[in-house]
């Protein structure tokens, strides 16, 4: 199968003496959810930041389709079709949920250097924002300032914004963190629906959700890939069990 949309080669990021991500080579394919799991501090969020352009790699390559996007600014990578959500809610708190998504959708216009066109007059942008809100389970909540929404709803706004940019590749950093069971189930269902038209990279701690949606799993420990493969393979891997799924020895190794 060669539907690879996004791949990395030897991706490495150092912070001073700390190597947060070390020699990571992974692939995200169209129509697949690629879940990255690992203990806290394994480098999962750093990996997403390297893919989205929020951080520059110290070494290695990021390739989107046939284009080398290593080191490109985040706004350019976003425009090339890579959307992301943040682990720590990163939205426009004073704006309404609708305006958050509308801004996200507006970013897909060729240019926003339009000084006289009223923002709310663009029906396509508005419709795209509404669709994203509905997909994330926020229909009817668009009018509320995000600051007034519950934590779980803010997490949903985060995902809706990523959707509103209509990406090919979705990088989701712990989308379920802080969500109630009902919202989690909704987002898992949403991911299952989205996967056909997207390549999804999912970082998540909720193992039930991960094993419910993931087609491929990568386990990271200490910035390195420990194991990568199908869910069955990961589940039966001794290395993973020792290092991550919890024996006392795993702790001592760190």
């Amino acid at each position, binding site marked *: 199968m060669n539907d690879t949309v996004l791949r990395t080669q030897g991706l490495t990021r150092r912070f001073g003496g700390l190597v947060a991500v070390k020699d990571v080579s992974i692939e995200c394919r169209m129509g697949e959810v690629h879940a990255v799991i690992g203990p806290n501090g394994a480098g999962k969020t750093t990996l997403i930041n390297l893919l*989205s*352009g*929020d951080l520059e790699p110290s070494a290695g390559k990021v390739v989107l389709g046939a284009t080398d996007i290593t080191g490109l*600014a*985040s*706004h*350019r990578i*976003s*425009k090339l079709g890579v959307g*992301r959500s943040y682990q720590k809610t*990163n*939205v*426009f*708190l*004073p*704006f*309404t949920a609708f*305006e958050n998504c*509308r*801004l*996200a959708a*507006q*970013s*897909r*216009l060729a240019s*926003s*250097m*339009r*000084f*006289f*066109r*009223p*923002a*709310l007059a*663009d029906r396509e942008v508005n419709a795209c924002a509404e669709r994203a809100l509905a997909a994330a389970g926020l229909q009817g909540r668009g009018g509320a*300032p995000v600051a007034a929404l519950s934590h779980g709803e803010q997490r949903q706004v985060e995902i809706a*914004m990523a959707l509103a*940019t209509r990406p090919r590749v979705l990088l989701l950093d712990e989308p379920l963190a802080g969500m109630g069971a009902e919202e989690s189930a909704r987002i898992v269902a949403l991911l299952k629906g989205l996967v056909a038209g997207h390549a999804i990279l999912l970082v998540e701690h909720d193992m039930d959700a991960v094993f419910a949606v993931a087609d491929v799993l990568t386990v990271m420990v200490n910035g390195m890939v420990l194991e990568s493969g199908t869910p069955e393979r990961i589940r039966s891997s001794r290395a993973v069990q020792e290092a991550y799924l919890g024996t006392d020895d795993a702790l001592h190794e760190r």
Partner: protein
Amino acid sequence: MAALLSALVALALLPLVAEKFTVQICTKIMIMAIFAMSLDLLLGYTGLVSFGHAAFYGAAGYALALLTPQYQAANFWTSLPLAVAASALLALVIGFLVVRTRGIYFIMVTLAFAQMLFFFFFDTKIAGGSDGIYVDVRPVAKIGGWQLFNLEDFTNVYYVVLVFLALTFVLLRVILRSLFGRVLAGVRVNEQRMLSLGYPTFRYKLACFVIAGAIAGVAGYLSTVQFGVVNPETLGWHLSAAVMMMVILGGMGTLVGPAIGAAIWMLLEIGFQSLPQAGGVDFGKHWQLFMGGFVVLAALLLPNGLIGVLDRLRGRRDESHE
């Protein structure tokens, strides 16, 4: 809206009832209101704390002075666009260098550029040095052979300034509601997120800087028309600080706020300057002391500016944020 229209009508009727002195003060206030609104586009709406905004105000004034032939009048229809273009071009050059900096550095660098311009005009003879340069004959606004208005007449100047105040208000309102305006709001609230949504924020901030500089240029041009003189003070940090105080005092992130702030600021200045002598102390001479005290009080008591007080009295929230 009704309040705005009645304010406009009241301003339009003022010269019919007021003395020359009052009309001239009011002209000055309206010019400062245009200037303050232009700064608020940066300060209140985009979150760019420019401490050198006078550079663009003074530059247009100097442009008019240098475009005016000695003992003759410049053409209003060409000198205004040229002067505003000079301010816009200056804002483009300065903005290109400063807009990539953030926070405290942005404040410092905008101040530094404005002071460089100040000392350029202060220390060189091309425009009268520290004394400034006079515009002896005001620009003439002719259409064909007919003079539309006469800028030698203070009432005409008043109405021209009023028209530009209204135009500035409408223009900014349209811009703020446009696709572009929403990008500015996003930059103010969370620039990093705007980048990750795919907005190249640098060029939007730069465009905003140029628009604000151009409108400041309109104000500076009108000021030179009113007083017939331009000097380095119009570029200096005192004026940059004063206009910033007007914006903050009136209420950032609104258009009416800076206009109110400009009026209060100018009236207080005049009020404190005309304080009498008492007990051997000339209070009027120390007006800046009282201005300082007022600023401290305002900062403590009016966190949202005067517009915040008005809104609270009318029981509604700031409409500019969605």
